[in-house]
């Protein structure tokens, strides 16, 4: 019993004192935001056909479907082309800012709004990759994903340095952003733009906005540091909880994909992989497909290997070494799928989801390599322009990804 309570208190300390896994949360932030950014840029010439008011899935059709499913989208606020272009541009900007970690919390909220708005507007345009981004964009809002590898982290370092020199750093951008989002939220609510939508996303927007105000107020509260610590503790809990959900989601993706395959006759007879390679919609390089499918043994190995890896993946998390091997396999397989089945954005999204399981030492090495490479490119060796990984202590300090 004593041991149990000790374990429990250790666990509580772990989930409340720090936002865990700063590198993992940063790498998935960069991964998902970059995937969506590249997707939006790639589809830029097709944007009107996919999500525009006059696309095949017209504004009226979307209106009728949304009247039934109540999903969140700001694209239905107006059927003008101008509004659509604005939202698309904002979605691109939010994805870029989130990838860079600029005002990470606000960027993550805007990123979610962008992803949900476009995808819910035209649900029949998406595929599995869109589905992953859809879910993760919501989960990311709850994380402190800008603790490392972000402009926020760099800003925090510079502010600390300035403070150490006795200078007073005044932040004007933060309050301005907060005020602007407040105006939009109030206007949207007052004009009834959230009516008819499910309560979840609008209340999440309001909650995020209110939380930033609370965080700021608690910081100014001079009588006691307690409110600020409490908010910090809650923010850590939310971060750690969301990270757990993200990991569980990745496991559920693999488990579902794997366990349902086991029941299929083609996965049992070892020919399943042959078929997608010969579907017109998933064979950008038919010769490559033929080459891979030339050997029956080869196809069977890949078929069985895929199922085994997907079913096994969640269980391998209990063993670090096996997990890492399988993780590398999954990433390689997704990279192959990107090319062979012509699903680059799906694969990128899945690789980003896998990255949440990457070991910290590996990520830190990756970070310093990237920083060194960036330093070389900028011709200033040693002064990396990309915010590199930081020492563990500052990395875990709860400031950067906190509300806003």
């Amino acid at each position, binding site marked *: 019993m004593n041991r149990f309570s000790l374990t429990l208190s250790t666990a509580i*300390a772990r989930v409340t*004192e720090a936002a865990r*896994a700063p590198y993992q949360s940063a790498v998935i932030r960069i991964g998902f935001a970059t995937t969506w950014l590249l997707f939006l840029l790639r*589809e830029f010439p*097709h944007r009107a*056909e996919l999500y525009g008011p006059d696309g*095949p*899935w017209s504004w*009226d*059709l979307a209106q009728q479907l949304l009247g*039934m499913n109540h999903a*969140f989208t700001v694209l239905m606020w107006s059927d003008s082309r101008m509004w659509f272009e604005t939202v698309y541009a904002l979605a691109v900007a939010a994805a870029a800012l989130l990838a860079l970690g600029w005002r990470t919390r606000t960027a993550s909220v805007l990123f979610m709004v962008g992803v*949900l708005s476009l995808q819910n507007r035209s649900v*029949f345009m*998406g*595929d599995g990759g869109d*589905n992953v981004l859809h879910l993760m964009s919501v989960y990311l809002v709850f994380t402190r994903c800008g603790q490392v590898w972000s402009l926020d982290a760099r800003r*925090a370092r510079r*502010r*600390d340095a300035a403070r150490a020199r006795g200078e007073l750093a*005044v*932040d004007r*951008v*933060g*309050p301005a952003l907060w005020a602007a989002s407040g105006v939009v939220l109030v206007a949207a609510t007052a004009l009834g733009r959230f009516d008819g939508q499910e309560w979840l996303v609008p209340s999440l927007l309001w909650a995020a906005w209110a939380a930033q105000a609370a*965080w*700021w107020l608690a910081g100014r*509260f001079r009588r006691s*540091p307690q409110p*600020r*610590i*409490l908010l910090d*503790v*809650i923010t850590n809990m939310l971060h750690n909880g969301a990270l757990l*959900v993200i990991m569980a989601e990745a496991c559920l993706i693999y488990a579902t*994909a794997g366990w*349902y395959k086991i029941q299929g006759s*083609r*996965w049992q007879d070892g020919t399943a*992989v042959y078929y997608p390679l*010969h579907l*017109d*919609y*998933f*064979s*950008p390089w038919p010769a490559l497909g033929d080459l891979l*499918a030339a050997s029956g043994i080869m196809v069977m190995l890949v078929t069985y290997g895929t199922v085994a890896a997907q079913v096994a993946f969640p269980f391998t998390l209990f*063993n*670090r070494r096996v997990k890492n091997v399988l993780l590398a396999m999954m990433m390689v397989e997704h990279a192959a799928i990107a*090319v062979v089945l*012509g699903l680059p954005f799906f694969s990128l999204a899945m690789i980003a989801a896998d990255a949440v399981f990457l*070991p*910290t030492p590996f990520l830190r090495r990756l970070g310093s390599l990237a920083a060194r490479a960036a330093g070389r490119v900028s011709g200033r060796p040693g002064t990396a322009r990309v915010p590199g990984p930081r020492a*563990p202590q500052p*990395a875990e*300090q*709860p400031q*950067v990804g*906190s509300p*806003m």
Partner: protein
Amino acid sequence: MDAYGGHGTQDGGAEVPRPDPAPRPGPGGAAPADAAPVTEEAPTAPAEAPPSPPRTGVAALSPRYQIGAAVALAVVAVAVCVHIGMVFLHVAPSNTVTKAHGEAIDEWIYPEFEQNWKLFAPNPLQQNIAVEVRAEVRTADGETRTTGWYDLSAEDGRAIDGNPLPSHTQQNELRRAFDFFTNTHNADGRPVGVRGTLSETYLRRIVLLRLDRDGAAGPGGDVRRIQVRSRSTAVPPPSWSRERVSLKPVYRTMPWWDVPAAGNTTQARAAAAGGAR
């Protein structure tokens, strides 16, 4: 959690990260309180650092605030568990629990957490389903003629061939629209429910857009009616297999659909609500 093992070893004792508990004069919600300025003891060898009491986490809170933290922890823990459980039940096959509480699960999951990961499962699709269309057009000089069949899926296929970054307009748009259409129509091709009607309008608009791009009506011409059919062809079994599969295409032909007056795509929007049957 062992993914973070390397990290976990570093946050014991004196190195526990701590927020500066002192209230910050710093303005802006965007400038959250930062770290205690790096003190001398922090970067030095942890062994020498005296084990200072943690200044963050619940331990740093007074009993009154600890109650608040406990409540928050309970709420977050329950929400996380319920959410993971609901997503699990949503992706799991129909079972005792989902049969009894399907409505509550759907209530939680839809619309934003819907997901489907039966990727190429239980079996991968083993046939190519091509969507073809022909049109009855009124030419510029008033004649009415019927075009040949346009294989729109083959057009998609050509656009995807050799393309490292296929667009959703090539890979998903028509394919998923036709999927949506067949899923919301019964065997005689009649729409089922509102979604059936929506899917028909959607398919018609895609087809018109494509016919327009292909210049099916010719200069000055107008598409009056369209007819869609699907051609399903089995993927030939692999060369090493002894399986025999009929490779004869199976056609499914829809009735002719009238195109609302001046049925080009930009104006077809007005017709979205009105059925064309």
